[in-house]
């Protein structure tokens, strides 16, 4: 598997680490239900999924990757700082 880092270009999967689904962040003070849902519950689709990866062994950038979990096809990659700003 290869992911195209917006900064470094296409790199082997082994340079990246995976966090999970890229979900909208709750307010820090949001109540426990909201944080419970954010941290634990997942739509977990068999298909396109927006997820967070970090180019940990490369440039260190966090990426928002849209990837099909059924085929592993990568549909889009952006820098998380831009996507989440």
């Amino acid at each position, binding site marked *: 598997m290869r992911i195209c880092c917006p900064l470094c270009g296409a790199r082997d999967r*082994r340079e990246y680490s995976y966090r999970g689904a890229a979900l909208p962040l709750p307010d820090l003070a949001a109540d426990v239900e909201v944080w419970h849902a954010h941290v634990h519950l997942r739509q977990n689709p068999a298909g396109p999924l927006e997820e967070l990866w970090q180019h940990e*062994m490369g440039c260190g950038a966090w990426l928002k990757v849209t990837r099909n979990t059924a085929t592993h096809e990568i549909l889009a990659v952006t820098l998380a700082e831009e996507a989440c700003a």
Partner: protein
Amino acid sequence: MTLREGAPVADAMMELTETSPCAGLLPLRIGGWALEEVPPGALTLIAPYKGQEQALSAALEAVHGMGFPAPNRSHAAREASLIWFGRAQALLIGPPAAEDLAPLAALTDVSDGWAMVRLEGAGAEDVLARLVPLDLRPQVFEIGHSARTELKHMMASITKVEENAFQIMVFRSLARTLVHDLKRAMEAVAARG
């Protein structure tokens, strides 16, 4: 803390001798390749503050004669080079960073944080191909190109400094492993004749 950390204050008082990261490990000559330690000069991480990218690049141009490098690129000038060192980071190698850059970027002295070696010889990329998951074909990774990647299981910075010559950096404490892994790769490629 204006005193630049790591810089000898007055040589007369020196009692602490220096030890380089690869002391006792290098140089090595195997097959057609030479592996040598690059003498540790000053290394400064330069991380531009928000919105200061252009100003910083201009200031760098002015004081060090090199603008902020694009991703995967490096600049070289006399006794100094500036290599892209990851997201929003460049590494100034050689002279200490000018203090007047401080308002524009976080400057972090990492002069002693890295082991830096130079691998030279025809087909050096064949040696690195044993350790680095990077496309190093000459037409792809040209002189002046620089990448943050992994070397075996270590974070590394690799820069093509000349035809058949690469500068390789890993954290200082990993110097032994770096030399061991490169040596093994050189021996294996050499043994194929």
